[in-house]
């Protein structure tokens, strides 16, 4: 057996172990981001799977787990956005709070707040929700969002402003006293 063939199994095993650790520790964040974007658990799972498989095929490119984590996260979001674009013709999204409760809102929240956050997101249109999630929760720049959504900067701003107005109304009860 040549040197190349001998090296491969250990390299593949190391990569497999790295992927396994990341799935255990970070997949919740990838999944949560995709779920917030799509509002659909199956689509979010598909998006993460696509990203993982792409990452596996390009595994030699990543220097460390942090880089791989960032890359999978970003590709999973892109896959979720692609899925949203493909399904654009379907009826407006109706996010079932009971089916995603807790997962969508994040850990450590009171169940009532988690439920209200889910309901608040459900009141947004697809575009409003995606813009809000990418801007506020994923920290994308407006230009990036507009480019990714094939939209204008103005449309993205307007969608964001509408989203925040709706969220303010929906989350009125949770406003901290000023």
């Amino acid at each position, binding site marked *: *057996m*040549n040197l*190349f*063939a001998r090296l*491969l*199994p250990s390299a*593949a095993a190391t990569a*497999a172990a790295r*992927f*396994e650790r990341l*799935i*255990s520790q970070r*997949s*919740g*964040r*990838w*999944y*949560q981001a995709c779920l917030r974007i799509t509002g659909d*658990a199956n689509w979010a*799972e*598909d998006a*993460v*799977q*696509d990203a*993982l*498989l*792409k990452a*596996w*095929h390009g595994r030699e490119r990543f220097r460390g787990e942090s880089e791989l984590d960032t890359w999978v996260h970003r590709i999973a979001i892109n896959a979720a956005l692609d899925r949203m674009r493909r399904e654009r013709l379907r009826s407006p999204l109706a996010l079932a709070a009971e089916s995603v409760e*807790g*997962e969508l*809102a*994040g*850990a*450590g*929240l009171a169940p009532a*707040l988690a439920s209200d*956050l889910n309901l*608040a997101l459900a009141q947004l249109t697809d575009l409003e929700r995606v813009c809000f999630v990418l*801007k*506020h*929760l994923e*920290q994308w*720049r*407006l*230009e990036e969002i507009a480019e990714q959504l094939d939209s204008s*900067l103005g449309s993205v*701003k307007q969608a*964001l*402003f509408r989203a*925040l107005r709706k*969220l*303010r109304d*929906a*989350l009125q009860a*949770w*406003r*901290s006293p*000023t």
Partner: protein
Amino acid sequence: MINDEQLLALLLDDSLPADQRRQLEQAIAADPELRRRLTAWQAPLRTWPADDSFEPAPAAAQARWRRALAREQRLTASSDRRWPQGWLVAGLATIVLATFALSLERWRLPPTGAAQQPPPVAQDSAETGALQRGVALYLADTRARLAQWPGSADQQHDLLAQSLAQNRMHAAAAAAQGDQELARVLRAFELTLESLQAARDNDPAAAATRQRLSFELGAMQTKLSPAASKQTHTL
């Protein structure tokens, strides 16, 4: 007078010019009513959990991703295992064909011309001809397999893994023989095959890629045919 749109822009618009942002901030700092309105807009943003607080993905989803990755790992391992074997087969085939070509040349030479040696180009031609015939067969075989695209995902991945292994073998053989053009074309096929392997089973883009690949394989087959028959004639 500062309106709500401007306050929202301050919160959300990262493309807001610096001087406008500064003016807004100064106005807010000087006006308690503006500060109250801004705080009211910030409230829904503060409600969301911090970036690093997330629950684990559902166990079923994690299990599904692990299965998908394990399948890819198996396929990678199997195609990697086949690669050196393929090299061995290609090397042996080349040696056998080259020996056969040399024997044939010697047999054709008149016995009185013992000092004459077969021209060195004959060996190269024999090897090149064998390689091109091998590639032509591989192209035809892959096209036939793509035409009968299997229904199950496992069979699809096996088919692609086998095609990838063969493709790598032929590309490496072409490069070893100095046929850089053929090696380059085969490496381009490798990228397409890898993208098909990474694509989801029901991805409509993958079907279009398969069709395009099949067309390109056919074009390459046609391009190789006259060369192959010419080499056969020379042999």
